[in-house]
């Protein structure tokens, strides 16, 4: 097992460097550069000032030299300095990471729990009106643009009903502490997490429904029925457990993407997370910040994949034997 983990870690490091190198060239291929954007914000910069900025940021060096300097820094766990925000990239990312994790994990749990429940319910009533309603609703949330659902949620629950705060991470200036603060954050979390969760719920619902139907046609289920087991027990113990395997695989894949954040949700709800940071960094061509976010995001995907693979080997004897 140790050898397996070590081999996977070496592979992960190579993949990370490949991802960074590819992204480095992709970002530099986009028109414009951070010096011109910064100068633009100053409003009256001349070519000399823009050149000064390029020199300061090291953008005047050949591209391969810049890549070498960047990767050299990353190998020493130095993600560089944000051109625009004038702060170390790692500080910026780790300041925003908790908010993103809170939002995406909550949305993930909402999507997983609601999606699975809805899938089980729909599969138990295939072809009936309740199956149609559940499937249609789930697909509706999936097909409707996320920003529109978000805006409507704000309009209804914040502006019209005044039940929930429409944006932000907590009440600015309230200076709550302890439990009061946790409650305040939870209130602010409800709308963005639900909006994002409902969007992903459809995937789990469809997967669970299909998987439940497939398993229910297998021989061991027929045997269970023949033995005279109660339908509820067959549904819970035999069908559901086995039907969950593909859902868990999907959840494992999605969990890796949690750090990537939710750009649209964070923007509409003014949620101070990484998704927004990434969007701003892209618009401002803040190369180091953008690469830093890609690095952390890719590292998390690889880490979750590694954990999933290890869990498989622990949980499923067939995989252990095969390898």
């Amino acid at each position, binding site marked *: 097992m140790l050898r397996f983990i070590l081999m996977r870690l070496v592979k992960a490091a190579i993949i990370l460097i490949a991802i960074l190198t590819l992204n480095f060239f992709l970002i530099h291929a*986009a028109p*414009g550069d951070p010096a011109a954007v910064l100068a633009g914000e*100053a*409003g009256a910069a001349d070519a000399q000032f823009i050149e000064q900025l390029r020199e300061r940021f090291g953008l005047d060096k050949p591209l391969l030299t810049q890549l070498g300097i960047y990767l050299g820094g990353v190998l020493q766990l130095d993600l560089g300095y944000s051109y*625009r925000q*004038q702060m170390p990239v790692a500080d910026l990312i780790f300041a925003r990471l908790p908010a993103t994790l809170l939002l995406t994990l909550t949305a993930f749990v909402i999507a997983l729990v609601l999606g699975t429940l809805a899938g089980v319910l729909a599969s138990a009533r295939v072809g009936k009106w309740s199956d149609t309603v559940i499937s249609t609703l789930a697909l509706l949330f999936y097909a409707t643009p996320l920003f529109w659902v978000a805006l409507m949620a704000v309009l209804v629950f914040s502006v019209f009903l005044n039940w929930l705060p*429409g*944006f932000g991470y907590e009440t600015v200036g309230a200076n709550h502490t302890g439990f009061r603060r946790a409650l305040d954050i939870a209130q602010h979390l409800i709308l963005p997490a639900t909006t994002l969760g409902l969007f992903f719920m459809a995937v789990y619902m469809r997967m669970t429904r299909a998987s439940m139907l497939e398993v229910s046609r297998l021989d061991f289920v027929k045997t269970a029925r023949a033995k005279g087991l109660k339908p509820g027990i067959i549904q819970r113990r035999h069908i559901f457990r086995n039907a969950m395997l593909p859902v868990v695989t999907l959840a494992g894949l999605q969990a890796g993407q949690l750090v990537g954040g939710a750009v649209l949700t964070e923007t509409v709800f*003014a949620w101070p*997370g990484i998704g927004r940071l990434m969007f701003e960094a892209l618009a401002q061509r803040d190369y180091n910040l953008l690469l830093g976010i890609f690095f952390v995001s890719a590292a998390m995907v690889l880490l979750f994949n590694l954990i999933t693979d290890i869990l498989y080997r622990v949980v499923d004897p067939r995989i252990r034997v095969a390898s």
Partner: protein
Amino acid sequence: MKAMLKRLSLLAAALFISTALHAEPVTGGRANVVIQPEPPSLMVGLVQNGPTQMVAGNIYEGLLRYDTDLKPMPQLATSWEVSEDGLTYTFHLHENVKWHDGEPFTAADVVFSADVFLRETHPRLRASLEHVEEISAPDDHTVVFKLKQPFGPFIGIFEVGTMPMIPKHIYEGTDFANNPANNTPIGTGPFKFAEWEKGSHILLTKNEDYYEEGKPYLDEIYWHVIPDAASRAVAYETGVVDVLPGGSIENFDVQRIAGMENTCITDKGWEYFGPHSWMWLNNREGPTSDVRFRKAVMYAMDREFARDALWNGLGKIANSPVSSSTRFHTDDVTEYAYDPDKARALLEEMGYDGAPVRLLPLPYGETWQRWAEAVKQNLDEVGIEVEIVATDVAGWNQKLAEWDYDIAFTYLYQYGDPALGVARTYVSTNIAKGSQWNNVEGYVNEDVDALFDQAAVAVTPEERQELYTKVQQVLTDEVPVAWLLELGFPTIYRCNVKDLVTTAIGVNDGFKDAYIEK
């Protein structure tokens, strides 16, 4: 539209009356204000973008402020004199001013700020300081600027965004860009930096040792970072914020928000900036190199429609390269009213072959996109085929800097004087690839160069007016760019927030006079 304009004018009238009748300022309270986008830094000596200046205008100060007629007012300087030959400017400073860390503010700080720090970091001021021979401090509270030659707009460069005062004791001998103090800015202003939760808010608190007695009135200001325009409108509707500075919400939301109870609107506070919009017309090649084509574009555009439909009736038709709020503007120029027939006639006269032209909208949001579509329709109607090219800000910067366009939207500030914010767009000495804040259109006219040069150094305002009138007449005859509107950016706020906009740079000038009526 008429009803909307009436409503806006009623609101403006209500504002005027309430301002005229207001009582004694009230101490205490908090202002909640939108800031968008989030500033990259609050160190206004290093970063001069709008959001930085808007927040930092409370922390830092300049020697002077300017009223809405652009007349200088005291700030850190209590009085000033200009020698008769226009070469020596002497400023007398407040005597009891302290930096936020308790150190005294002296003339040495002024010399350091202008001569050392800002010369290195502030491209716009650096250009003006080219005219300065020497900056000296004969005593702790007197500063003398000695010029190489008279420079008409010189008295107009002392506001906080152009020449902010920087603490010498913190920055002297350091790497300015990487000084750790940049994250905890220290100025002399009415509010101190307290907290910055990136992505969420910035908190400024009252400077209890401020040198103007009784000021500021507010205890604190929260600047809320809300990235989505619709969410910013909701923030005002739900009472989270009380002030929406100009440009905070999309123009199509202005009427709805301005119609709310206890809500006032003003387009004052932009006189110093004089935001002037136009379309760059590439004078180097293609149909836009022909003056008849450029005139046809002017006649083809329905600018009144754009102002009323897209800008809520705020702003003015730009009939000259010099904004009407900028010094030396004249109306005695060739005007271009909406006249599609004249446009068609000019195109026919030049033998325009119908070659399509590329139009770059300004990538600053929905209003600009719609405006580009309206112009495309106007030009289509007179037979000019337009292809809209979509870019983001970085791509737009690059295309303009590389002159890779036919027609492109923009707007720039004029900073109160043609020598500071107008000449740069038209003089041929300012043609250079790599920047888009110069003569991007490639217009060359030696007479125009000479007139701008003479006007900048002429001593008397009368001489300057005569020269600037001439240059405006030449330019409107030759149409190097297609002028659009003098933009009107509405500041929207609760009517019980008083004295919010009192100078020519509006909310960028700090909240030291503002108070909240109970």
